[in-house]
């Protein structure tokens, strides 16, 4: 059970949050111009890394805001949390 530092509410238990998959996947601005393969790349393809992973999380039982998290999946260490639209603070 993580202890997650919501960028808006502060440190809370993981049970207040919902994970939302890989971060920094931008919805194509003009989907109709994409080939099936390009669209599939956006729609289906996700990374599953052992190591540093960028994830979306939602403080669903708190402020209901989405934010991003950098997490090392090998030891669950949360390296950073940052607001939507912000650049990841670690590489």
């Amino acid at each position, binding site marked *: *059970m*993580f*202890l997650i530092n919501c960028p808006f509410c502060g440190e809370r*238990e993981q049970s207040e949050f*919902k994970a*939302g998959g890989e971060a920094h996947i*931008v*919805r*194509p601005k*003009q*989907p*109709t111009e*994409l080939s*099936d393969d390009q*669209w*599939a790349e956006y*729609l289906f393809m996700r990374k599953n890394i052992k190591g540093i992973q960028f994830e*979306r999380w*939602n403080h*669903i039982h708190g402020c*209901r*805001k*989405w934010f991003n998290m950098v997490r090392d999946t090998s*030891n*669950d260490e949360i390296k950073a949390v940052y607001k*939507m*639209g912000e650049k990841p603070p670690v590489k």
Partner: protein
Amino acid sequence: MTKNLRVKSSKLVDETYRISFKFNGTTYYGFKGDTLASALLANNIHLVGRSFKYHRPRGIMTAGSEEPNAIVQLHNGTSRTEPNVRATEIEIYEGLDASSQNCWPSVKFDIGGINNFLSPLLPAGFYYKTFMWPASFWEKYEYFIRKSAGLGKSPDVPDPDIYEHKYIHCDVLVIGAGISGIIAAKTAAKNGFKTLLVEEKSYLGGSTIYQDSEFFKINNQNSASWLEKEINEIKKIENLEIKTRTSVAAFHGYNFLLARENLTDHLPLEQRENKTRQRLLKIRAKKVITATGSIERPLIFDNNDRPGILLSSAIKKYADLFGVACGERNILFTNNDNAYETAMSLIQKGIKVQAIIDNREEIDSKLIKETEKNNIKIYKGYTIVDTFGYKRINSVSIMKLSKDGQKVIGSKENISCDSLGVSGGWTPAVHLFTQSGGKLKFRDDDQVFIPNTYPSNQISIGSCNGDFTLDEILINGPKLLKEFLKIKKTEYENIEIYSAFNKSKRNIWLLPSNKIVGKTKSFVDFQNDATAKDIKLALREGFRSIEHVKRYTTTGMGTDQGKLGNIHALGIISETASSKMGELGTTTFRPPYTPLTFGTIVGRNVGKYFDIIRKTPIHKWHVENKAEFENVGQWKRAWYYPQNGENMHEAVQRESKAARDSAGILDASTLGKIDIQGTDASEFLNRVYTNAWSKLEIGKCRYGLMLNEDGMVYDDGVTTRLDENHYIMTTTTGGAATVLGKLEDYLQTEWPELDVYLTSVTDHYATISVCGPNSKKIIQKVIPEIDLSDKDFPHMSFKNSKIGKVKCRIMRISFTGEQSYEINIQANYAKSVWENCMEAGKEFNITPYGTETMHLLRAEKGFIIAGQDTDATMTPIDLQMDWIVSKKKFDFIGKRSLYRSDTIREDRKQLVGLITDNPEEILEEGAQIVADMNKTPIEMLGHVTSSYFSPNLKKSIALGVVKGGKNMMGQKLIIPMEKKQINVTVTDPVFLDKENKRLNA
């Protein structure tokens, strides 16, 4: 057999308070403070159970949670029965009723004991090897295996006890209240940390609290007296909470720990009513100090499992703490100084020590010299090669060890005894530490695994960190604490310690014997009957990984999780395979450290609190009017309202007919409702629905379909434009939370530039739907001032209104295909409005209907239910709802996916109507649909999604999804059932009023 083996007054037991209890049907007596084990030993009972595989007689072996043998069933045949309770942990109370497990007909005569003689036929992996062939016989084998296996019986009636959960947040958690834990807790609390100290036993002080001799001194006092003063002091510290009878079960990441607090297990049954039995503590600690101590190692030699063989430290504890002699003629067998401490304790209490067998040659500590003064024969450089006595040890055979310790030399000597204490040194209890993700290192000096790297803000101190002696504990502990708590000094800086103990140890994992290994039964895992021979066999058969050997031999897989013998298994593997212990690693220690009851795990989430129940504002009326309820997600929804003993079918037929013939009323309050405001609200709806919204007039409603980005329908509902920049969206009952979540997701992450705000008002508004040809008249009576003329208030529009001074919204929308009005009103007025409608509708026979009738009515009209007629594979095109997909809009969620090669296939499953040839035949929802019964394999074209008998059409109707169904109108298909085939014809999904005459009437 029955003897009183009580000795002088003891530390823990109150001899003025006698308690009676039953063991295997016989009544015995013990004292307050006794564990079941100490009370049995006081009655000279060692034999308490049979081993798992060979059914060998087994006795109490330890005095703690590491006990492998003495596990009993409590209160057999009652609702409070519990299997696998360790006799060494359960405190006796008046009326305790315990019995042995894994034996039949009795522990003294057990039929299964024959396995002991068949043991050559039952090697490691026996079950894997034997019952693999032929595969089809497994089911037959399984019956017999299950019957002969198993430890104890699970209860078969509901648990009468109450269990609770409790969240605790603290600065410092200290696990274990031995001397190290006491020091840690005191230091932390006195330095301002909010501290929690948990201890699995009922008392504080660990083993030092009965270390009451001249050989161990702190500041010139006996270590026990010194510690007692410390304990008295910590009890007064305000920011220190102490919980006894509390054992930590799991140590997770981020210092999240689970502990079980036992509140009533030590009380007589009649004192437990209405009390919480056990509490699961969910602890989040900023810092954790693990001081879980260590577990004494047994020694591995032939027949080392007989009743009467105990850990040497357990014998000392029973004598010192409980005042119980484990035997009258004791032998101690050791590879280190600890057995001499036990010997001195026994001597002081007048209990005879027959001999000490020490596998070390040269030993010279003060403690040993002192022991020798008592005329005890010490066999130096000897080992036990065998033991005798079936239900109780009666003698041992010893032989001299060779210099290298690899074999025995000389001749055998027999010594008689009635109890044998073994001491193989200590294993740090690192289980919790490794659960948390900590990595161990192997210390070659004394052959122990100790903590190396910590994954979170924690330390281990005391003997679980490999500091076994008093001076190590009192010097290293405070040093570590200073650094960990970032404090300048502790009160233990200039402490004086005297210890007569010497650390020397001669470690031999598997002691040599005069017999070959294959002929010995040297138990490594006592509960699972895994022997040194089994481990060696596994290695011979090619197993190398410790994890594989564990599973093949079942070493460490019992309820005790191999707390005693796992380390020996590792040692034997490394010796046999000539690998280094440190490189071999250990098996994974998984939670829980000690077993948890299911009750503790689930807490109060049982019975009516099993799951959350949501109720509508009109719920009480439904109850009062005898509705049957249906669970829809967490909601309780009125399902149907049976009258005069009607069954569901009869009630639904009546309700459905009334709704179309005159008037029906439905509580639709569970529908999700989202208030949408902002200057970009219309644009937002354009992007999330498949149809266009910009041109919707204020005051009008529109039906919308929502897709996932993959093009599949996932929710639908009616959205109403309340004002220029203000909409109210309805969602399905089950979809409310996910729709809001998804819309918020897009708003916050993809389209943050849109000026749109979403607020859930699902619970604020109740929705009362009145439908049928007389609905207009009823609404008019309830709200006389409203103009309901079709011209002024057509289908798919809304009006603000008031009932009394209470504002409300009336929407003319329909899910039944009938003329229909929905009153949306603030929840606390809803029951009253509903009652007004019932009163006003009396003359029209207004009929309350539930979800079942609602489903039937909408099916007649061919309206889908998202989630019933759709799953995550249906596009709007598959639903034959092409009309709702805007061709003009540049983009909406899911649009691109509607043109993928897969979604444009003609032979996708498509929604159609199904009419049975026999109008009385009602299809089963979920039934398969086929065209050709002769084709092999039979091709499944789809399945039935909704099916009802329509009282209005007087025939059976159904919706289903069929491959290429769109182009199969009029075609005959077959629904194969278990005993018959049903012939159906594919039709349009709209069965009733295609022209919408009823809606607009």
